[in-house]
């Protein structure tokens, strides 16, 4: 188990640990913070990630995404539960894990006063390799910042910092890559480009765990875990999560959108209604309610455009959030 570092230059992952074939296994992990453990960051989380999978952890700030990543990259100990990465235990085998994973934290964590090239060299050297040896893996990404290789990392723009950080996380050919909110605060164009880069890395066989608060990015993953308040609400392919949406969903539009929303909320057959871009989304209790809606709104003097729509991940996320919180309320009573 000693020759973890791959010296050949072609992709040839070292032997796995004895914890099974899955790239990542998380079993009943819990994590609290505070003297009285008053902050529950992760609450009994379990899931596993297949080798070569692009797996998304989707949830808002404070959902527990970073705690989870820090536990899996052996930088934080869980209170309870167990986890393995490539079959290695995150507590017992932390050294083996550190050699084989790449981690890009949410906050820019490279050396600001080293140049682009120096940073990359530094990380290559620490992992006992060189830029040349693994250049083919980072080439796509690195060529975009190579013209600035003599510039100090602290002087780079946000987009360039992101590319450098990804290059540094990849320079030792990790078998599992952890990316914590790589696209937060990044504009829509750069976000698209970043996801295209991830697809290409996946094609090279690297397992990728990526977290994001942007629900629209879920569709770009093989599978996603929707996480909120330290709990996983659903794990599946984006397609399957959308298909499991249990109610009819309509997009409704009129000239006066705000009064329309208020009127929708008073409709008997309504489960939920909320703004959604240029439309309102109306979640209805059943198909009868769908037929009745147009009549109801026209009786209230709204001239409306109503179309059935396929839910997206954000619809599903809100539905799950609301059902989780109403269950919690029931338990409190």
């Amino acid at each position, binding site marked *: 188990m000693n020759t973890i570092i791959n010296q050949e230059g072609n992709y040839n992952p070292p032997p796995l640990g004895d914890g099974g074939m899955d790239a990542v296994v998380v079993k009943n992990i819990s994590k609290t913070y505070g003297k009285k453990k008053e902050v529950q960051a992760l609450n009994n989380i379990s899931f596993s990630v297949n080798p070569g999978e692009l797996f998304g952890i989707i949830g*808002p*700030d*404070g959902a527990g995404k970073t705690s989870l990543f820090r536990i899996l990259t052996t930088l934080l100990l869980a209170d309870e539960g167990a986890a393995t990465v490539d079959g290695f235990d995150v507590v017992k085998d932390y050294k083996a894990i550190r050699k084989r994973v790449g981690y890009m934290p949410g906050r820019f964590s490279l050396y600001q006063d080293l140049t682009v090239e120096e940073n990359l060299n530094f990380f290559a050297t620490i992992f006992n390799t060189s830029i040349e040896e693994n250049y083919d893996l980072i080439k796509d990404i690195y060529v975009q910042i190579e013209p600035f290789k003599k510039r100090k990392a602290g002087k780079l*723009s946000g987009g360039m910092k992101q590319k450098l950080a990804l290059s540094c996380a990849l320079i030792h050919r990790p078998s599992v890559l952890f990316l914590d909110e790589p696209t*937060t605060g990044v504009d*829509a164009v750069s976000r698209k480009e970043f996801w295209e880069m991830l697809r290409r890395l996946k094609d090279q066989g690297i397992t990728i765990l990526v977290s994001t*608060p942007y629900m629209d990015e879920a569709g770009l993953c093989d599978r996603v875990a929707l996480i909120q308040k330290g709990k996983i609400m659903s794990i599946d392919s984006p397609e399957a999560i959308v298909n499991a949406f249990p109610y009819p969903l309509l997009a409704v539009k009129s000239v006066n959108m705000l009064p329309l929303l208020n009127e929708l909320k008073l409709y008997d057959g309504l489960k939920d209604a909320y703004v959604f*871009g240029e439309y309102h989304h109306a979640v209805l209790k059943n198909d009868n309610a769908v037929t009745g809606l147009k009549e109801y709104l026209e009786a209230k003097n709204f001239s409306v455009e109503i179309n059935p729509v396929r839910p997206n991940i954000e619809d599903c996320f809100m539905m799950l959030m609301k059902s989780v919180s109403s269950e919690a309320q029931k338990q409190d009573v």
Partner: protein
Amino acid sequence: MNQTKVIITDKLTKRFGGFTAVDAICFEVTKGEIFGFLGANGAGKTTAMRMLCGLSFPTSGKAMVAGFDVYKENEKIKQNIGYMSQKFSLYEDLTVKENMQLYGGIYGKSNAFIKQKTESILTELDIKKEANVLVKSLPLGWKQKLAFAVAIFHEPEIVFLDEPTGGVDPVARREFWNMIYNAAATGVTVFVTTHYMDEAEYCNRVSIMVDGKIEALDTPHQLKQTYNAGSMDDVFLKLARKAVRTGD
């Protein structure tokens, strides 16, 4: 409808050495309008906003904000606008009430005003019980709503919101926009930047900056027609992909 212009810019420009961050932008914002200010990273949004907030002098061009000149009356501008960003807005180590007292005091409001306004915000946000709780212990969604309430505590004419909803869950994000609508209905002008393209749909008008210039400015509906796009996301991609310069 009141057609008072609360922001007027005319060829507003900012250069840093040989680099033109903001390149002769011209636009007007009407009182009570929700104005979306979009652009890719590095397009010049922050620089433009800093000039409009009286924090940075333009290199050339003109701008009036809340009736004041950005060159000569920048201190007056600061008193008449509110500002909130996702990165910083509230003091985490002060309580909910203390934050409101601090901001009210900074803007020179009387004790009576502060007391009455504090009460009404606590009621409106339904956080009376949390009045004496440290801000850092509040959930993120609440913090964001409170930050917005504090940004308009002194009843400014215009409030600048710089990516106010980043990282917030989808339900809280919608509650936040509800607050924006309510504020706009009382006549506050809202100037907002966002990376969420569905939020661009909630604005009355949207401008899109590319390489320091305003490439497009219209209602979301009209923009989609002009650029033959199905959504604001498409409009944005079509325009922002033209950008030559990169980064922040």
